[in-house]
């Protein structure tokens, strides 16, 4: 397989169009299974009561918020090193979905925190660094669109995204480095403190969020390609046909 075949926007446009629908279908199927497990089958937590069920969307969205930033930063590194156009378009396409997941992670955390900690918001390390992540996404998007020349926006925002990567380990390790209100991870490689259906529900929901993120990114990158390549001949032929 020629790896560079799909790195041209015109060929990737078609590929993205073929891959997006199956991603959304997979996301929907996984979400249905995950919600059935999480909201239906999993037992209610003895200490927290039913409110712990927020975990089935809180943890997947929080994971995705960090993972998407990492993937975005990787595309940004490709942009700076190889000056490829498609990688910059992919990074631009990921950012809004990443910001969406970050927002939902903060929001669901607040509504989980209110009954369990007695407050919607605390300025602890985990919450603050996740809020910083949201602003990094906003800053990235603002800088990417702040220039007349989109190529310059690509490169400037790519560098910003790479500087912002330092925030990821801060978020991830914040619950270990500081004594915070936010609980530590319930899942680890040594084993887990959770009921097996809870764990299954959370993992299935995470895969669903992942598939949704892929689908949304692919749809958005198609729009970005059309915006950027609108003067190219292949785009004109596209509409005329």
């Amino acid at each position: 397989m020629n790896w560079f075949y799909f790195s041209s926007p015109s060929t990737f446009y078609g590929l993205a169009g073929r891959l997006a629908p199956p991603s959304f279908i997979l996301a929907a199927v996984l979400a249905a299974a995950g919600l059935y497990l999480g909201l239906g089958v999993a037992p209610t937590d003895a200490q927290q009561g039913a409110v712990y069920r927020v975990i089935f969307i809180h943890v997947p969205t929080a994971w995705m918020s960090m993972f998407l930033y990492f993937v975005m930063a990787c595309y940004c590194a490709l942009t700076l090193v190889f000056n490829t156009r498609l990688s910059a378009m992919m990074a631009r396409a990921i950012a809004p979905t990443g910001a969406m997941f970050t927002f939902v992670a903060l929001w669901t955390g607040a509504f989980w925190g209110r009954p369990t900690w007695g407050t919607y918001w605390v300025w602890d390390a985990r919450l603050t660094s996740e809020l910083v992540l949201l602003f990094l996404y906003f800053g990235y998007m603002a800088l990417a669109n702040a220039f007349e020349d989109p190529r310059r926006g690509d490169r400037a925002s790519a560098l910003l995204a790479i500087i912002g990567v330092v925030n990821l380990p801060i978020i991830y390790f914040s619950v270990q480095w500081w004594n915070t209100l936010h609980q530590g991870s319930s899942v680890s490689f040594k084993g887990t403190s959770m009921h097996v259906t809870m764990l299954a529900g959370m993992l299935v929901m995470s895969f669903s969020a992942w598939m949704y993120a892929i689908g949304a990114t692919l749809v958005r990158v198609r729009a970005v390609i059309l915006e950027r390549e609108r003067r190219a001949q292949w785009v004109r032929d596209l509409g005329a046909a």
Partner: protein
Amino acid sequence: MTIWWKSWADFWAMGGHAYFVWMSYGALLAAIVVETILLRARRRRALDAIEEERDLEAEN
């Protein structure tokens, strides 16, 4: 794999935490709906811009 809840009413009540649970799930649903609308609008705008470009070309 039995359902934990005794009835639908029991399920919607979420053991008294209905407000917090459904505000969370509702926010995710709202976020996905908003993103879908924005994605469609963006694609529409891009296609319109191409159409405009082509019309300009045809005039010249």
